[in-house]
Structures are given as structure tokens and as C-alpha cells.
């Protein structure tokens, strides 16, 4: 009975989480007339793929998606590669400087993004990185880094020092201990941070809008917004179809690495 209730609650939660996606799918398959019904139905009466056709023919969704993928993968990997050693140092080397650094990282998050857009643009222009995916990647890395650092610092702190001490007692050097003992234990945290960084970059709009000028380099969020008009009026069908397609890479990325996320962080780390 209790198990049944548990499954029922879980099913309810899944429906709650999945509903926006299901509604997006439903909207993407509706005709304009069905969308304007006073009592909209979840299941389209006359499903159509015309919205997908419009989305693909009117905007460069594939190109935009590929460019977003390049930027998001590069930003995620570089962010984690840079944040991981910094997080380790911040977690393992307490001191005043450490606390100041952590405080500064936190404070950097409170600046409204719009304040830094113009100076950032000017810096990128001097570096000749405006209108390039490398420039956008650099911006994404910079802006995802503080939170990634905090996330990874938390994961590093959760790895008991005793594990490293045990490795040292067994004769492992610093590098060997990091590579063979700490790194595997940090894997779920690294994966979670990669996922966070990837999704942040994949969805990012404002910097892309400012940094990328030409249609040939536009990322997916810039492509999606072109289905909207003034006063919040939008072409809902193609917008829903394009948005649905835009969620697919995130879902796939998550599906591929979710096993790593589920695995217990400390499973088998310390023998009882």
C-alpha cells in the first residue's frame, strides 16, 4: 500500500515536471485555429507538422543548433577544467586569502549582467573576438565560472581528507592521489557541474545578442526569438516547434550522463 502511494506520488511529480514539455509538443502540433480555441485541448484534433516545416524553412535552426552546441560544449569543458583545480585549492587550503577569494566570487554574482555588457563588448572588440563563437565561449566561461567554482568546491569538501591521507599512507604521491583517488570520487560533481555549465551556455541569450552580429554566427536562442513580435505577440506554432527541438540536445546530454549523476558520491569511498 505504502509502495503504491509512493509510486502514485512519484507519477504525479513526473507529470508535474513533464507537463510544460508535453504542452510544448501539443502546441507545436496544433493549427493556428486550434491554438486560438477558447478551451484548448491537450491532444490536437488535427495534428500538423506545418509548424516544424515553418520553423525549419524560415530560420536556420540546424546551423544555430550546431553553433550553440559548439559554444556550450566548449564553455562547459573549459569552465570545469579551470574551476576544478581552483575549487580544490579553495576547499583544501583554508586561510584569509581563501575566504576573501570565495567572498569575491560570491559578490561577483550580484552585478546585474546588463551593467557589464557594454564594457565587455569593448574588451572583446579590442581582442577582435566580437562576432566570433570563441568570443561568446569566453564570455560564457567567465560568467558560469563563479557558480561552477562554488559547486565544485562543495563537492571537493565532501570528499573526506582521510581518503587522501590513506592514499598517502599507502605510498601514493600527491598527483597519484588526486588522479586515482580524488578524481573518481569527484566524478559525479564534475558531471553535475558540466551539465549546469552546458545548460547555462546553451540557453544564454543576452550576451549572444550583443556579441554575435551576423546571422551566420547566430546561436539557437537568437534564432528562437525571431518568432516573437511587438507587445509579446508571438507566432506560437513555429516558436513551440523550434523550442521543442531546442530542448532535445539538453535532454540527450542529460540522458547520456544522468547515470553518473545518480551514482552515489561516496559509495565505497571509506571502508567501514
Amino acid at each position, binding site marked *: 500500500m505504502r509502495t503504491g502511494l509512493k509510486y502514485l506520488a512519484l507519477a504525479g511529480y513526473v507529470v508535474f515536471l513533464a507537463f510544460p514539455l508535453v504542452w510544448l509538443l501539443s502546441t507545436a502540433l496544433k493549427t493556428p485555429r486550434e491554438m486560438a480555441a477558447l478551451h484548448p485541448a491537450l491532444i490536437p484534433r488535427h495534428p500538423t507538422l506545418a509548424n516544424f516545416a515553418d520553423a525549419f524553412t524560415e530560420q536556420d535552426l540546424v546551423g544555430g543548433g550546431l553553433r550553440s552546441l559548439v559554444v556550450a560544449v566548449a564553455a562547459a569543458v573549459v569552465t570545469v577544467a579551470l574551476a576544478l583545480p581552483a575549487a580544490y585549492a579553495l576547499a583544501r587550503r583554508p586561510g584569509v586569502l581563501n575566504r576573501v577569494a570565495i567572498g569575491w566570487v560570491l559578490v561577483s554574482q550580484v552585478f546585474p549582467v546588463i551593467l557589464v*555588457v557594454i564594457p565587455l563588448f569593448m574588451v572583446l572588440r579590442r581582442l577582435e573576438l566580437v562576432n566570433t*563563437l570563441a568570443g561568446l565561449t569566453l564570455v560564457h566561461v567567465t560568467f558560469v565560472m563563479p557558480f561552477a567554482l562554488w559547486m565544485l568546491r562543495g563537492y571537493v569538501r565532501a570528499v573526506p581528507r582521510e581518503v587522501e591521507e590513506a592514499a598517502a599512507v599507502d605510498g601514493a604521491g600527491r598527483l597519484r592521489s588526486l588522479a586515482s583517488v580524488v578524481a573518481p570520487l569527484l566524478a559525479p560533481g564534475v558531471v553535475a557541474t558540466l551539465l549546469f555549465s552546458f545548460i547555462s551556455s546553451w540557453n544564454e541569450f543576452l550576451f549572444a545578442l550583443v556579441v554575435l552580429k551576423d546571422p*551566420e554566427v547566430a546561436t539557437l536562442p537568437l534564432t528562437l526569438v525571431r518568432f516573437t513580435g511587438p507587445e*509579446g505577440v508571438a507566432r506560437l506554432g513555429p516558436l513551440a516547434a523550434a523550442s521543442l527541438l531546442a530542448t532535445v540536445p539538453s535532454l540527450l546530454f542529460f540522458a547520456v550522463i544522468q547515470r553518473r549523476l545518480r551514482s552515489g558520491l561516496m559509495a565505497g569511498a571509506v571502508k567501514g
Partner: protein
Amino acid sequence: MRRWSAALAVAAVALAAGCSSGGSGDDGGGTAAKPVTLRFLSLAWQKESVAANKQLVEEWNKANPSIQVQYVQGSWDNVNDQLVTSFEAGDPPDVIHDDSPALAGFSSRGYLLDLSGRLPAALKNDIPPAAWDTVSFGDGKGGQGVYGVPFLQESQVLLANRKLLDKAGVRIPTPDSPWTWDEFASVAKKLTKDGAYGVAWPMKSPVNKVLNLALNFGGTFFTTTGGKTTVKVGPQEREVLQRIHDQLYTDRSADPSALGMGTADPLPGFFAGKYALVPAGVYLRQQVAEQAPEGFDWVTLPPLKGVTAQQGATSQTLSVPADGKHPDEAVKFIAFFLNGPNQAKLAKGDWLLPTSTSAATDPGLTTGENGWDVATASAKDLVVAPYLKVNGFDEWKSKVATPALQEYFANKISLDEAARRLVDEGNKVLERYSQ
């Protein structure tokens, strides 16, 4: 360990790909050997409108190999953030599609090129002075200039369920004999029955709508004396406010639940017969034509008349940045893009009204189909919206007027209180801009 090495290798490859992709930003050429390339930021978003824009750019590029135009699609939602950044950074598009309220701010900051004396006579004469008024602003240094070419305008009409009008036996108004506000109120009452409302007023963004309609009774909301602009809410400004409020709470012929809606949100209720009339901009006809259920009989009714049928108008515009690299070429392109026949194509694509007098005679814009004849005829009563010339209007609108009007229409405050807030709090805002 091997997996970590692989991950780092992937990172390096991805970053390298990122570095090599794109980056082909054209600097506009400008050398004798290379054609000039103009970046044209367009805000067209409807399917037909995007197609018309692209087709015109293609035509131009074929006919002008030495001045090539690159079509860049922007979005109304965030164009001004995008533009401010590019103006400040000195890298704006060469031809900018925007609207006249945005131009007011940009011109005073010196972002835009004064086009006076640069435009060909044919284009100047084809657009009436009332439309040029919507793009004439101060340059921030005491001078006046023309900072764009106005090409599309919008009037407020009524979209009506013809079956319900016929059933109620009411007169269908024509451009020569429009409904007065009194007649409109009485018709809306007649149409309110069997659970249906005569009218739905979507007032999520009430300010521009109310201010544009207020001109029916001569209401301008702003007055300028001795170079200082202040807010005024006198009997003329109160007319439209009071009449809409009466429909909501005295006549009960307007649905209060529609107040929070955006412009297009009442359409499902309109199609279902819940609302007989929806006041809307002419462009909403496109959505009605596309979304109305089969057999739904709708009609476009001309703008209401108070003392006059005048409405405040703004325009969609094409401008050239002050520090653009190719202003002469940009003006040439604009003159082609906005000639009479091309304006007709753009107007049809966006379901808006062309400013070009020759475009307004295009058969496609005078047909009775989808209310084009009524919509096009309404252009004659458009005058420059008084708020266009007010420094600080945007802040007054968002911080003072929008909440005050929303609360008034929701019956939470009286008209006197709304007027007091619009004036007292509004003048404090405007004061800052006049310093």
C-alpha cells in the same frame, strides 16, 4: 586517467572549433575593389513580412552589385538593448529598423544621423508631414532633425463579430460615418447578453492605447510652457478613461477579466462569441484571418469618433547611425526599400498602414477583404502622438502611468486619484529629464 585525457582532448577540439567558426565579421568593405556591405537590422517577424523584406533585399542586391545588403533579423523584444550596446561600442548596423518612440531617445543622445537634406525629393514628397512629425526630434544640442524614414503606422480599429451585430440590429459604421463613443457605448450594452460581453478591453499595456485614443477628445496628457513639459489630466484627458471605466463597471458591457490580457489574448473569446467587439491595432487582423474558425464572420470597424476621429500615432522607421561607415549608401538603400510599391508590399506583409501616399492606393490595400479598405482609410486621422516629443515619457509610462491606469481600470482607485498620481508623480519624473 585515460577518460580525463579524452575529455581534455574534446575540450581542446571544441574550443578550436569555436575559435575557427564564425568570426568572418565583415567590416563593411569600403575599398574600391570590394563592394560596400551594409548590415540591415530588420524587425520583421510575421511570415509574409519576413518574406517581403528578404525579397526586397534580394532585388536590391541583384541590381546593385557595388552596394550589397546583408539582412540581419532582430526582434522587437530586445532591439533597444542590442542597439544601445552597439551604439556605445561604435559598431551599429548600417540601416536600423525600429520605431519612433525609440528614435526620440536615440536622437537626443546623438546616436542617429540627421537625414534632413539627405533624402530624395520623391521619397520626401510621398510621405505626408504628419508622418514626418513622428520622426522629427531634438538633437540634444538645441537643434531639430529628421532621424528616420517613417514607413508603417498603426491605427486602433474595432474588430467585430458580424453575426452578433446583425442579430442585435445595430448599424455597421463606415469610414465616412463611424460610431461615436456614445453610439459605441450603447451598442456595447445592446450586445451584452446571454453571458456574452459587448466588448473586451485588453489593458495589460494600457498607456499608449489610452493616450492615442484620448486625442478623440483633444486629450494630450502633456503640455509644454516655456520649454518645460508637464503632465495634465483635465476634462479632455479624462473622457476616454471615464468611458472605458463606465463600460466596465457602470454599463457592465465590458468584461473585467479581459483587463489583464495582452493585445491578442481576447481572440479565443472573440471567436467563441464571448466578446462581440475587440478594440485592437489594425495588425491584429492578420491573427483573426489566420486563426478564426471556419465560418466565423468578422468585420473591421473604423476608429471611434469623439470630437474628432484623430488618433495619436507612432511609426516604424528606418534610420542610419551617426557613426555609420556608409551613410550615403544606406540612404540610397532606404530610398529604394521604402518607395511606394515596396511600402505596399511591406504593409501587406505586416498588416499595417503605409505612410506612402502612393502605396495607400495599391489595390491590395483598398480591397474590402480582411478589412483593408477600412484600415487604410483610417490612416487619414493619424497625427503624431503628443507623448513622442516628451523627454522622460518611457519612465513616466512604466513607473507612473502603467500602474496608475491598471489600478484605475481595476476599480481600485478613483479617476481623481489616478489623475493626481499621473500629474504629481509624473511631473517629478519629467522634472529630472528637463534638468
